[in-house]
């Protein structure tokens, strides 16, 4: 299948995502320039980590206004899978594709460390073949990953929580330990931890690969498998 990795000025995990998708998982990858608007026939869009536009107003805020974003929005509206990692997650929040907002880490410091998180929802193309409650290990590296939403919104989106930091492992003060959420349809997922940093054994964990492999299988088997596991119909509801 073909992934499109969006490159914003200041993205710095773009090469890492491309390396994992192309060299580790043997997929087609196209680079999508923030200043362009076409999505060039891709099956899945990845917004990588980094500091798009320096995160200068708020993390992801300026990037959310870049020319490529309207195409990302219509791509998402068509039900195709979109993944935002770290800064990519922040961009999706700022663009209104995902609910909530990010505050600075409670420690006011950047945190780079391995964390454990649990899979909370399998109703997304990135988690459909994982187990609910499955524990994944991958690193976080961010200064603004303290997920926030007012209480009623948090209650509303409870079913949209895709990943939660394991107990005692909340690296940033996130509301309800939220590490990743999806949209109502489930096809747009954002998470703060970095699956591309946990996709090769030499780097200490291969759990991140599960997320990429899930979407690859979801996309490539769609034509052959008439009824995908329980998640698919629900994911698109």
């Amino acid at each position, binding site marked *: 299948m073909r992934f499109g990795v969006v490159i914003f000025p200041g993205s*710095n995990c773009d090469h890492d995502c491309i390396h994992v998708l192309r060299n580790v998982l043997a997929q087609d990858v196209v680079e999508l320039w923030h200043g362009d608007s076409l999505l060039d026939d891709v099956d899945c869009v990845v917004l990588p980590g980094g500091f798009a536009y*320096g995160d200068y107003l708020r993390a992801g805020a300026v990037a959310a206004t870049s020319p490529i974003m309207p195409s990302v929005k219509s791509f998402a509206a068509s039900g195709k899978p979109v993944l935002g990692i770290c800064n990519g997650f922040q961009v999706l929040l700022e663009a209104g594709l995902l609910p909530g907002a990010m505050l600075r880490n409670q420690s006011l410091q950047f945190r780079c460390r391995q964390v454990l998180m649990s899979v909370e929802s399998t109703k997304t193309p990135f988690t459909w073949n994982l187990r609910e409650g499955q524990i994944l290990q991958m*690193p976080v590296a961010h200064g603004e990953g303290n997920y926030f939403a007012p209480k009623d919104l948090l209650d509303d989106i409870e079913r949209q929580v895709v990943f939660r930091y394991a107990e005692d492992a909340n690296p940033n003060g996130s509301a309800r330990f939220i590490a990743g959420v999806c949209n109502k349809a489930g096809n747009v997922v954002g998470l703060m931890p970095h699956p591309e940093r946990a996709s090769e054994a030499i780097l200490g964990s291969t759990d991140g690969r599960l997320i990429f492999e899930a979407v690859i299988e979801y996309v490539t088997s769609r034509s052959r498998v008439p009824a995908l596991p329980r998640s698919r119909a629900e994911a698109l509801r």
Partner: protein
Amino acid sequence: MRTLSPSTLSPEAVGLTRSEYDEIVRRLGRDPTPLELKLFGVMWSEHCGYKHSKLTLQSLPSSAPHLLQGPGENAGVIDIGDGWAVAFKMESHNHPSAVDPYNGAATGIGGIIRDILSMGARPIALVDSLRFGPLTDPKSRRIATGIVAGIAAYGNCVGVPTVAGEILCDPGYRDNPLVNVACLGLLRHNRIARSRAAGPGNPVLYAGARTGRDGIGGAAFASEELHEASEHEDRASVQIGDPLAGKLLIEATLEALGTGDVVALQDMGAAGLTCATSEMSARGGVGMIIDLDRVPLRETSMRADEIFRSESQERMLLVVRSGSENRISSIFRRWGLQAAVIGYVTADRELRVEYRDSPVVSLPPYALAEAPAYRPAACEPPELAEQWIMPDVLPTVDPGSALMSLLRGSDVAAKRAVFEQYDHMVQIRTVVPPGGAGAAVLRIHESPPKAVAITVDGNGRLCALDPYRGAKLAVAEAAANLACVGAEPLGVTDCLNFGNPEDPEVFWTFRQAVMGITDACRALQIPVVGGNVSFYNESPEGLVPPTPVVAMVGLVRDVAQIATQSFKTEGDVVVLLGSSAPDLAASYFLELIHGLSRGRPTDVDLTTHASILAAVREAIVSGLVRSAHDCSDGGIAVALAESAIAGRVGVAVTLPYDHRAEVALFGEAPSRVVVSVSPDRLPDLQILAANHGGIELVVLGRIGGSRLSIAGPDARPMIDLSIEEMSDAYESLREVFS
């Protein structure tokens, strides 16, 4: 055309002496204009001109078969095989960080990254060596946390991981912290870029951020002692970094270099355009004509000397093939950066600068770029030998509580609270992260299964007591750190931090340290590929401890064959390789526990050292040992504790010694490595040690349980501590940094 009118400025006003002024007149054949004199002021400052150090530095070994670029360029470049090479360089940013810790440290990171970029390499790692006053002191804490935050802010955003470093504290650094940062870059052999301007008629292209009034005269500022009011007065000299522009500049420059149309390039760092234009033309034996009206400005009404000397960050100067300027410019603009042709290369070896249609500078580039060289007077500090006398008796201390204090001590304690603030994983190369071993290991996925290792070492405590031996020990320690991950040393870059070189005692100390590095690098056959000298590190409180710092880069041939310091498997045998006698002289134990900075550091025997490191490397590469950790600050007790803490597993050992208990536990000696090996492979390790010139090997004990217990030869326990309580003590810096 108006002619250039002679100076009305005094040489002293720009930091030069009367005889330097005479030298300028001799080189130019006339008096310089005021603007020209200001340019000489910055270019002949110690920071840019190395005038008090360059003759001494000539002794450093700078050749090796695998060296592709030695000193004299923006960074050294070393072959790592299969068409790939690494570039690396270390720089200091001490004075700016003293005045403004956050911005000073941040721009230090930006600057060193662009030195590596100037060689055509993609920056892949940063390491830093930091010195602060005691972290119990509020001012030192403020400086320390500010510097760490500045490194994090720039390094994290620019997308270059900070993978290793050291933090040492001493009251001598209270008002003058040290910020030494090194950057490592990766490149293909055939893509090495250089700074030699060439090809008359080729356009000179300015690229990057706009020019403002940042850091005017910053280079000269770095060459003065800090005085009382510096903290408030000198704000104008501190540049502000923009890591986003720094990141865009990396991508745009590498893309521009990929066209093959870039003839030469250099970072506009210290002394800005002045330095870049004069050095690039001097190195190429050509001239340049520069029109300052074409320089993209951030502020209006800047004077010619301000534009030409500005130290605004994130700017590069390129010479490109004639006809390619529009194509190259459009690459930079696509990345959202400025690009402007500001002049041309000329054949006549004259640097001509014009502003508002009038000539403002006209002189031979070498005249500016090659500062005079001095051999200052040197004199051994008379009281040095007195400090080598050790006290006859030391008060008795409980070994267990001494170990706990050492683990808590800022020089030994875990730096986790610091490196978790740095993105140490971006670029997904970091196989051994900070804290995992004495050196970081970065895989080179472009050329598997290779990896490179990098470490940084320096010790002001040892150098204050004996600069020659202390500097030698820094090199020896760096080499040991590389060996303990299984890497062969490739090269060294150094940063030499001292006081005022015109003080004969300071200069003697500097010269001894350079001699120490020279002898150690020659003996270990490691070239010094470049580096930096930072003089005038003093404050009203006095001199900083003499602090030579070395960053050493090594090659790992197969990333699967490495070791870390953590104990891995219960039942494994713990072995000490090397037999040099531990000594409390100049030790961290003596300083921290007894408050004494005394004794003469050991003169490391480099032949023995080299054979032990070769044995350790072979044991790792052949998969014999499962962990390796050299004994450094705090002696064997700290080494054992660190390996146990990292592995979250206990160990029980017996130290067969014939010294006093604290000497055996906490005494320091180079060339001692603690390794762990599975019991069935022990005979193989013994054979390996014998084959390496009969290295002494002592079986100390076994891994297991959840306590560190160390017994003496009579089997009486000296230390018995739980891993948990040691871990808590070891994480003491959390209180300071998080």
